[in-house]
């Protein structure tokens, strides 16, 4: 993997930030999430032009050769704007899984296509209940046909391809299916978080291609990378809603003074700042450790997973309280962050579970 300098990383994040400020401001975001697809294709194309869809794809496959530190940083930008495209599935998890595939003739064109922004990938890796610890329900047969159900698939309706985790005998493998395959049925679900698009996928002898060489270990790695990426997304959102709140405390006047002069609100803000910075440190150090394949990478990934999810929810919840009545309306953006934070609690597993896994990793030092 080629070196990606800190300056490169900052440069692409800056460009991404400008793009989202322009094309994913609150007005536009609200338009997009009101659509059925909930997905802004034009914006995706622009992201592709900037190299963002190929951020984690090697240059020889048309990407720009970054890795998880770059993805974490880019997702901080995305999170700040509540950008809700299928970035983690398409540009983080799919490249991780495809690039592990030993059959390059299968993987390379897809990687190329992702980098070019032409292909959207969904990941069907979870039991119908949405519980990542539950047994997979999808099974593959020897003819590479898939049957069963996967739940909580993000942006499945906007994807053209899906990577499906399936049981094959005693093993687990990853399969590539075309969304258009007649053996695939999608059921979109209604969600409380308006930025979220979830579907169930039912497979009935759906034709698939097996990703040779990709097994349980790689699925685990892809989840780890996804957790760090999601942690980055949380951090961006957390910091943004926190900053909006501080701004409000400075500009909202009651009793002839900015409410930020009231000590009780100051103290709430100071306490929240610790949560914001804790989350930032957790996500960034996790990304760094994973990138360096450091021995702490598991510990830090789980730490980031529950810290960033919990702190996002805490900060977003307190943001509503600190805003008061104005944030009790749909018109104010605070609730969008708060609902997104709820999503973050469950999309890849619960904070309680990650806390337990974190401790298990820590126990190895005993």
């Amino acid at each position, binding site marked *: 993997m080629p070196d990606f300098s800190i300056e490169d990383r900052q440069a692409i994040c800056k460009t991404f930030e400008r793009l989202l400020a322009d094309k994913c401001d609150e007005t536009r975001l609200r338009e997009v999430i009101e659509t059925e697809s909930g997905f802004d294709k034009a914006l995706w194309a622009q992201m592709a032009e900037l190299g963002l869809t190929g951020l984690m794809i090697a240059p020889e496959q048309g990407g720009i050769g970054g890795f998880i530190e770059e993805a974490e940083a880019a997702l901080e930008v995305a999170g700040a704007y509540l950008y809700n495209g299928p970035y983690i599935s398409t540009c983080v998890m799919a490249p991780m899984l495809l690039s592990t595939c030993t059959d390059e003739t299968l993987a390379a064109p897809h990687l190329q296509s992702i980098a070019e922004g032409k292909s959207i990938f969904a990941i069907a890796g979870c039991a119908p209940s949405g*519980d990542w610890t539950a047994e997979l329900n999808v099974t593959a047969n020897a003819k590479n046909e898939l049957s069963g159900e996967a*739940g909580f698939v993000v942006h499945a309706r906007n994807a053209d391809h899906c990577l499906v985790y399936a049981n094959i005998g005693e093993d687990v493998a990853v399969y590539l299916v075309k969304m258009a395959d007649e053996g695939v049925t999608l059921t979109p679900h209604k969600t*409380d978080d308006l930025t979220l698009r979830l579907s169930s996928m039912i497979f009935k002898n759906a034709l698939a291609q097996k990703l040779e060489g990709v097994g349980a270990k790689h699925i685990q790695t892809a989840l780890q990378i996804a957790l760090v990426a999601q942690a980055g997304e949380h951090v961006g959102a957390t910091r943004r809603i926190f900053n909006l709140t501080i701004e409000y405390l400075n500009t909202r006047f009651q*009793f002839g003074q900015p409410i930020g002069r009231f000590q*009780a609100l100051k103290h709430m803000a100071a306490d929240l700042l610790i949560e914001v910075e804790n989350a930032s440190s957790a996500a960034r150090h996790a990304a760094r450790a994973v990138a360096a394949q450091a021995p702490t990478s598991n510990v830090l990934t789980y730490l980031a997973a529950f810290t960033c999810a919990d702190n996002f929810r805490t900060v977003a919840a307190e943001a*509503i309280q600190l805003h*008061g*009545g104005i944030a009790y309306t749909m018109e104010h953006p605070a609730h969008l962050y708060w609902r997104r934070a709820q999503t973050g609690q469950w999309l890849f597993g619960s904070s309680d579970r990650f806390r337990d896994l974190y401790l298990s990793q820590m126990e190895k030092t005993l």
Partner: protein
Amino acid sequence: MSTDLKQEVETWLAAHWDSENGRAVGSSDYDQKSWLTKVVDAGYAVPSWPEKWYGRGVSPKEARIIEKAFQARGAKGWGRDRFHLGAISIFKLGSEALKTELLYELLTGPICCLLYSEPGAGSDLAGIRTRAVKDGDDFIINGQKVWTSNAVEAEYGMLLTRTDIEAPKHQGITFFIFPMKQDGVDVRPINQITGEDEFNEVFIEDARVPERFIIGTLNQGWKSFQTAIASERLIMGDGITSRLRGAAGKVPTLLALAHKHDKLKDPVMRQEIAQAIAYRQLNTLNMMRAKEEMMKNGASSLASLGKLAMSRIQHGEARLSAKILGPQILLTETEDARNANFDAAKAYMNSIGGGTDQIQKNIIAERVLGLPKSTDVSRNIPFKDIKSG
């Protein structure tokens, strides 16, 4: 005498109220105005008021006898001397002329909404900026009110206005009973984070209200308003305690939810569920104690803790409900998930609405614990000089 009264009311109700069909005897449908007129004329709507003002001049205790007789038969129109804020305010603070002009009308029908809060005056309610400017026998009103329930249906609003910007903020306020059905009054529902729209914004542009509709005295509206909200607080307190008492003994909602979703075997969940249920039960016990203290001493500082305590309870239960449901909470497809998501949003109604938790804590610290009052830097300067950002 109270037995006589009970007897009398029951006889009257038997003659006039058709319990079975929920309408006046002999009528084919429930007609609000005609029924309320009957009740008012009989003196049962506001029995604790003097006869001159449509009451019976009875004690509050006797008034409850009448209320109970009405409640027992499902008859409407009782307790307006406790719950009709508009009528109560005019009865307590209005001039003879105003009472004569409006009281009967208000008691026999129209809803009154509360035009207090403004976008710039939330916690700092005395900071209202809606102007009332004298014009002949009228005042002309311009401004914006917010968090008004029933604004669409209301025929009158209890309107707090600024009439003197040279005076300190509490001293240039005038309180009106304001006719809502006129040009220049634009009601727009607020889309709340719960999905409800029980509250409205009310935009007022060059609307008029006669000078004789002032409740109390010009520029002394803050005092009138205090009297009015004291009645409101009594209602809220009552509402809270009776709702909670209703829940005692029943299966706690959270426990039923955890049981349904098979989470009662998880020791971590058990601790959290137990603590959440405990917080609610403790508040119930506090409110029972408050009631006992009020019976005994006429007052209880405990009562003022209920709203603040409820914030921890409601936000905590909401967070825990989500944990019980797991990923299902993300969907709006089950009733449990819909309820849990709704409750999570609705919890802010308690922690923000009717005085934020932060305002409640100030009040408790100062009024219950006797800690020194905070200085309001905007209190003693001319209203026009108060900084507003």
